[in-house]
């Protein structure tokens, strides 16, 4: 019993900077497509045309091309890689699973398609990403949801869009359009040990995954689709006729494939933060350090990459924390057209604090920013000079001084004429 899942691994933390890292965003369009054979260019031409229309400069290479390389002189030559070469045992040239993994760690995005046979190099790369493909020469068989045009082995599956992860950013309109998907290929399972699994689908127990995506901590995105045919012209065009449902004229494959690719290649769901400012509310200056109980303002500009342009982000659930081991202040930032702002009073605790924004939502790239400031106690001149409750003490001090002065004056200058008379 197989279902079509998209399983997103959302991740915590750090857009960390790696050596020879890629700075991939929506405007990065260098795409390498690795194919088992160049014939796939024709059989999947609709898909590639969609990509070309989006402005990608596509380089097609066969996977065993001996001149294959993605890194040259420490610089990456491509921003994205599509591997439509499931049966490849080993890449040609200077590419192998390790290089591909490094590519991901450097920030590059990868889309991998499997099929009934999945080569060792793909398996190796997948397992680096916590994905395990099913055994070689196997296929997902579903006797309950197969297409009527199936040849009797029930490997051509019709998957319902209900099983998709409900994140419009990743799957686009595919879920809303409610068109079933055609799928023929292998399944996979995710590493149950992976601690970063955020959104495991509700249908646990049917553990076979057909499509899965992963967003690494550096926001590099990796997609695995079990079926190469999923992207083919045939599947894009053909009608889906489930054995147990009503026939739809067109499969949802094209919508999903394109949406998925957009997301993977950072055309959607990409956020960035910039212009972090924090200052005193009173005079709008940023001191070298804050003092306890200062009123301060923190603001930051959030942008979202939409339709090829950076637009102001309009989410209202971004939170700011003021952390010293534990958060002392946690407040939601008010969004004024992408300008997020929070005002709060520094707690009456000194130490080294951090302004932390940790915005991690399914489908969006993970934004983490920590700005360190130190909070000092009051200076010796900043305390109250006179305290009301201390007036009795002031009075007692001065009255005693006056008294002592008077007494010594009397003792020194008063001549005691009558020594027998006792002074009180």
């Amino acid at each position: 019993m197989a279902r079509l899942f998209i399983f997103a691994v959302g991740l915590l933390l750090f857009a960390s900077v790696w050596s020879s890292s890629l700075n991939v965003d929506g405007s990065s369009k260098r795409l390498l497509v690795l194919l088992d054979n160049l014939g796939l260019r024709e059989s999947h031409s609709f898909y590639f045309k969609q990509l070309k229309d989006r402005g990608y400069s596509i380089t097609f290479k066969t996977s065993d091309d001996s001149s294959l390389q993605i890194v040259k002189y420490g610089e990456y030559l491509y921003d994205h890689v599509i591997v439509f070469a499931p049966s490849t045992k080993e890449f040609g040239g200077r590419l192998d699973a390790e290089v591909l993994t490094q590519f991901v760690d450097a920030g590059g995005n990868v889309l991998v398609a499997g099929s009934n046979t999945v080569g060792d190099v793909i398996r190796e790369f997948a397992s680096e990403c916590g994905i395990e493909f099913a055994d070689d020469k196997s296929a997902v068989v579903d006797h309950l949801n197969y297409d009527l045009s199936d040849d009797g082995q029930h490997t051509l599956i019709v998957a319902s869009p209900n099983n998709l992860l409900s994140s419009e950013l990743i799957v686009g309109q595919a879920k809303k359009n409610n068109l079933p998907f055609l799928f023929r290929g292998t399944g996979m399972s995710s590493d149950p040990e992976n601690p970063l699994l955020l959104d495991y689908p509700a249908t646990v127990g049917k553990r076979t995954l057909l499509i899965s995506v992963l967003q690494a901590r550096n926001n590099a995105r990796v997609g695995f689709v079990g079926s190469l045919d999923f992207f083919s012209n045939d599947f894009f065009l053909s009608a889906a006729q489930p054995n147990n449902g009503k026939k739809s004229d067109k499969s949802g494959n094209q919508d999903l494939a394109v949406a998925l690719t957009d997301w993977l290649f950072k055309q959607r769901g990409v956020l960035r933060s910039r212009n972090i400012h924090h200052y005193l509310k009173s005079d709008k200056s940023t001191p070298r350090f804050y003092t306890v109980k200062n009123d301060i303002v923190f603001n930051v500009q959030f942008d979202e990459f939409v339709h090829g342009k950076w637009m102001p982000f309009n989410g209202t659930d971004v939170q700011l924390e003021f952390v010293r081991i534990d958060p002392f202040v946690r407040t939601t930032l008010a969004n004024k057209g992408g300008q997020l702002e929070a005002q709060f009073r520094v707690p009456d605790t000194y130490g080294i604090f951090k302004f932390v924004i940790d915005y991690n939502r399914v489908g969006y790239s993970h934004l983490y920013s920590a700005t360190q400031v130190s909070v000092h106690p009051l200076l010796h001149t900043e305390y109250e000079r006179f305290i009301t409750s201390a007036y009795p003490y002031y009075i007692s001090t001065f009255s005693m001084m006056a008294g002592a002065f008077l007494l010594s004056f009397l003792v020194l200058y008063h001549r005691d004429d009558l020594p027998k008379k006792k002074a009180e």
Partner: protein
Amino acid sequence: MDAFTSILPFKQLLPQKLSYDKQETFLKLFILASAGILAFATRLFSVLRYESVIHEFDPYFNYRTTKFLTDEGFYSFHNWFDDRAWYPLGRIIGGTIYPGLMVTSAALYHALRWFHITIDIRNVCVFLAPLFSSFTVIVTYLLTKELKNTSAGLVAACLISIVPGYISRSVAGSYDNEGIAIFCMLLTYYLWIKAIKTGSIMWSASCALAYFYMVSSWGGYVFLINLIPLHVLALMFTGHFSHRIYVSYSTFYIMGTILSMQISFVGFQPVQSSEHMLAFGTFGLCQLFSFVEYVKSKLTQAQFDALFSFALVTVGFALSVAGLVLWASGKIAPWTGRFYALLDPSYAKNHIPIIASVSEHQPTAWSSFFFDFELLVFMFPVGIYYCFKELTDANIFIIIYGMTSIYFAGVMVRLMLVLAPVMCVLSGIGISSILTTYMRNLDVSQPKKSAGTASAGSRSRRTDDSSTYPRKNEIAFGVVCLMTFFLITYVFHCTWVTSEAYSSPSIVLSARGGDGSRYIFDDFREAYWWLRYNTDEDAKVMSWWDYGYQITAMANRTILVDNNTWNNTHISRVGQAMSSTEDKAYEIMRELDVDYVLVIFGGLIGYSSDDINKFLWMVRIGGSTDKGAHIKESDYFTPQGEFRVDKEGSPTLLNCLMYKLSYYRFGETYTEQDKPPGYDRTRSVEIGNKNFELEKLEEAYTTEHWLVRIYKVKKEENRGQS
């Protein structure tokens, strides 16, 4: 005095044209100046042998603060909040240190600058302690002179100039509070003796000022503020109490207390904490005592008795009620742990691991008394004997000082320092008295002249009797020779101890090779310099607290804990990280934003005070708080109760972070001939867990002799694979 000058063999060398008084002054000045210069010079071993470098741990902090003070001025120093230490808590430095030392150096520095003597502030710091030792020599002379006479003063001054117990804390480079505090303490005592002898307000006020200087420079002032009241009390009980004492003590206490409260670290302690209650109580008692004396002089005996018994009951009751209320409301601060440790040596060990873990806080071994004082150990009782023989107010003071400090020195090693001056003073009195007594018998051809001008009464009687026993010239000669021999061995011993034991900076190590040549291990500075130039400016370094001050001062990086052990919980957290497995430790390190971990490892060169040998303290301190309750000391021992790092060692130990960081890649290293790889030369065993890989950390730097190893904490795995 003539008895004294007659001791000197080179009397003939003195300018003959000078009058007798002038000769005497010249001699005194000559001896004092020599002693002062000797005190300075003998402390320079470390500078000559290594370089002009700050020593050990605390001095680095003092150096750093002094530098800050000279650069930024007093007010920034006073308000200094250090965000480089105790990350992420920070530390208010201005309010948690005794600023006397830094202010002294800064003042010296600016004074020299004013005279256009351009000197580096580091050199001021390095040579401050020897300089103040020279001052101490002079003050000791003055103090002993007040107690006994000039000759005793000169002997004491000579003794203190080279006594190892004091040198241990005042060699060049040992830039610590104690370096100037001993001077302040003796100065206060001198002025106190002066005050009670004269009963003058001026001397008492000077004494209070000296006390203020003492308070501003060392936490050991608590000893002083208890000793002086104790003296007053003793005087009261022995019937020596007089108006002079009353004036001196009242002036001293009031002024001293008000002044001491100006030090922000001390704050309200003088009127709140129980450590200062003796002084306060004695002050009250002084007033009562004088008042009672006054009333007594005005009333008849019967009237007085009635009034006295009535007052005793009411006042006693009122006082006890007030005391209880203050105690219950917490106004009287509870006794602090360090103070309990003084009274009960086992207290700290049982209750506060952080106090017990410091080697300076350990009880003193018998041998170290001899090591630090040599001859003085035997001459000390002699001095006390002579003081008892002539029981004046001042002598009562020095007896009390001697008795209390010898007790405290037995409790804590570091308090040997307080004992050192009184040892010298009393031994000075003892030696001088013995020498004067026998020296007089030495030259029997001039007995009349010597006896005629003998100063102290008790001695003159002895001199008169001396003709009653035979061969007194020979006996006297024997005693003087013996004394001379002792004094000469004292000088040799002191020089040897200073050179061998107390002059190593501990930041640079040295060892002797098989052929007698000297090897220098400069690994500490190598590592700190590496941190300084190769890590991010805001990088946080985790290490055991011993190295905190050095890392901030030399590497200028943020650290989690340092030698100012003010927050036990935070230190405990670091202890937990060090004694947990790598995974658990990683969580703690992420929580505290640790970027680098620094460990000290001596297994390659056989350096014994490394982190593995300190490790049990990390376990104890780590396990002493709630969060670390799962860390139990017994888990780190073998079933037989041994602490071993070889194959027999407990698996918890062999897998904890500290073990792994110390022994990473050590299993494949050959350290000694005929021994298997991974042979630990400090503990003389082959390590038990050899081939392991680090998962959450990576080795960043290891110094030449592996003494310091620095690891970088890895980021979380990019693709979520653990």
